[in-house]
């Protein structure tokens, strides 16, 4: 074909057919940070195993990750949508607290589960919608708009009650107390809910027009608009999804702790963001995977578990997560800089 010259695998000197590695890189270069997260997870496990003399890598430890951090996983899924569009959602921690309180209060007042649970999801969705509209139609910075959402959620949580509300509703308690066993592996309904959320998110992001539009917006909002994509509604929807996930996380956390507590989830939004970034999603948007965010949550959970096992100061948790975050952001910058250098 006459045009072979233009289609050479660009900027690589080797002639002839591109190797398998080159093809893979040119197709899936964006996955590198996520692979790095997997590598770090593996290293953490090996490190834990060595430190704790063979007491770490066992089904229970791994099962516990999902049992203990189901709520964080759901938050990270919602956050991934928002960050992929190039935004940020700081409200999720306090929205989770608010919806937890709302559900606990409704149940305590005698409402049935089928009203309380949808009300929690709806509460989260409405706050997400509010943030999305501020961002999209009033041109407010996502940081500021979701900061408003953060204060709003926390305030609403305290309005519901200043004190913790116990939840004894069997259906909610069941979510966390049921242990389904498969050999030595254990999973709770909360863990299943979290995994299903991940699966739905992965499907939506990769195989629907809506999902691809999310990526397009993160790549370049201007280009997406010129391509005739529905930028406005998609961006708002990303925040609604994040809010709904925060509502769901509120349910999972309530089930986990058997209570709603208005001070729950202070700073959890930052844990969720850290997990998403460690999982390889670019803060500037357009690149990343929801499965990466899951790995990010597991990395976060594993570090915390190791520190608990060692009986070390919890302060180390923050230092290690902070260092990892820094490392990943530098790696991402390098990747972006390389991509721009080629343009």
């Amino acid at each position, binding site marked *: 074909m006459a*045009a*072979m*010259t*233009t289609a050479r695998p660009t900027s690589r000197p080797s002639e002839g057919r591109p190797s398998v590695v080159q093809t893979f890189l040119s197709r899936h270069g964006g996955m590198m940070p996520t692979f790095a997260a997997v590598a770090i997870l593996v290293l953490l496990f090996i490190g834990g195993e060595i430190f704790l003399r063979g007491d770490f890598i066992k089904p229970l430890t791994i099962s516990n990750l999902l049992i203990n951090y189901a709520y964080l996983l759901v938050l990270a899924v919602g956050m991934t949508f928002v960050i992929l569009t190039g935004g940020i959602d700081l409200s999720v921690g306090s929205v989770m607290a608010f919806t937890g309180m709302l559900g606990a209060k409704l149940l305590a007042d005698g409402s049935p589960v089928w009203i309380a649970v949808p009300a929690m999801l709806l509460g989260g969705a409405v706050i997400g919608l509010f943030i999305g509209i501020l961002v999209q139609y009033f041109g407010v910075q996502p940081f500021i708009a979701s900061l408003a959402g953060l204060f709003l959620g926390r305030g609403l949580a305290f309005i519901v009650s200043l004190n913790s509300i116990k939840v004894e509703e069997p259906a909610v308690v069941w979510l966390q107390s049921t242990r389904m066993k498969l050999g030595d592996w254990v999973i709770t309904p909360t863990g299943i809910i979290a995994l299903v959320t991940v699966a739905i998110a992965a499907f939506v992001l990769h195989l629907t027009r809506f999902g691809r*539009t999310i990526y397009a917006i993160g*790549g370049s909002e201007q280009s997406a608009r010129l391509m*005739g994509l529905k930028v406005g509604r998609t961006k708002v929807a990303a925040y609604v999804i994040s809010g709904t996930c925060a509502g769901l996380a509120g349910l999972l956390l309530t089930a986990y702790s058997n209570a709603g507590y208005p001070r729950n989830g202070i700073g959890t939004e930052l844990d969720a963001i850290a997990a998403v970034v460690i999982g390889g999603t670019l803060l500037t948007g357009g690149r990343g995977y929801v499965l990466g965010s899951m790995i990010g949550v597991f990395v976060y959970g594993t570090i915390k578990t190791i520190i608990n096992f060692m009986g070390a100061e919890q302060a180390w948790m923050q230092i290690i997560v902070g260092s990892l975050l820094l490392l990943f952001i530098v790696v991402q910058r390098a990747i972006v800089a390389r991509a721009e250098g080629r343009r």
Partner: protein
Amino acid sequence: MDEVRPLLELTGATVRFGADAALDHVDFRLYPGEVHSLMGENGAGKSTLIKAITGALAMDEGELRLGGEPVAFATPHQAQAAGISTVYQEIELLPNLSVAENVFLGREPRRGGVVSRRLMREHAAAVLEDLGLALDPASLLGTHSVAVQQLVAIARAISADVRVLVLDEPTSSLDLDEVAELFRVIRELKARGVAILFVSHFLDQVYELADRITVLRDGELVGEYLTGELLRIDLVQKMLGREIGEVRARGRVHEDDAVDGAAAVLRARGVSVAHGVADADVDLAEGEVLGIAGLLGSGRTSLAHALTGVAHLEAGVIRIESADARLDSPRHAISLGVVYSSENRRRDGIVAELSVVDNITLALQSERGVFRRIPPARRRELAASWVDALDIRPPDLDRPVGTLSGGNQQKVLLARLLALSPRVLVLDEPTRGIDVGAKVEIQNLVSELADNGMSVVFISAELEEVLRVGDRVAVMRDGHIVETVAAADLTTDSLLALVAQPTEGED
């Protein structure tokens, strides 16, 4: 050919921005299977016309017909749906997605409501092959060169049912091989009966590709011509226009003696800037005005950037007062007495919201640093003296500069630079978009400054002006200084010929 009707017909198109008409009753037509070039300098209304056709901008008056039917597009999306696709100068695609997705985003092939990646890859491969591109559709767009990305943008444009393809300066970031590849694709589309609107600054490319040329100037239609019947020199003349103003003749002090290197205030050798200037030599003597003549895209602005530390030099040396100067920033250049006034006054020049005083003293204050504030009384005194000296009207120091006329804004900008007492003043199109009276004033001012020993580089699209103000004129074409001639030895026509002349090996 007579019974062929235009596919797209624009009549009486008028677009106003405030009081100014960016497009004034312009007619334009596009036949199927032809390449039609839209020509004009900066501000001629080319991009406005394109936007009117592609639905990016609403017309105040005028009618658009597509295939004989009157149409009105509120958004680019509607125009696309009607078969008008646009490829922009800046590649408006998504580097983070695959080639196939970039081709089909927004109308992905779906199977049962689910995007089918396999179908999308197959369709994309077919479209790419149609264009003669052997490209892995699953690879990320960002891994390919700019040229390939540009071709993918075209693949996107033609993968829909395209009747009209608008190419807005698609070649500005491509090298020669890549341009040839693009042209091959364009010719193929033309053979299929697509109507192509091709905008480019490069005359060679226009003459190679276009069947027909429409020339715009200052928002007005100059005329429509068959390429074969329009000489290059006539085209350039129509683009630049002519205008005779009254100017005080200036005693040409330097025209006889060619500047010898030692006396040069500024001396550049072999200066190159990526995608701009290649291997340019410049000598500028004390009190000399060096005019730069060249068409848009000839590298005239890049040269100005190279001389003033705005652009990073790929090669070459610049000596100021016979000392090597590595100009790594405009700030550094200013400290050596070289100041630059941008061609884009509104964006890179004045601060429209600030007052006349603030604008004039801005650079001076910045030069002195934060800790040595100019006392307010001194600032006003200084500004008042410049307002007086340059006759800035109205002489109201506290007025926001944005409310002044274009000519007076330009004077404020000049005052700011002159307040730095520079040795070399680089003016990039200082008279663009200002009225004739103000133009003449600025030309006279430049002459006066030079008479008082300042060295000036004066860039303008208007050849008469360059000749009138310059002692010598450097002619630029395709990023090269092709000749430097004493202004006295040139006439407008001979300069026009130099500016328009095709590169060697053609015609």
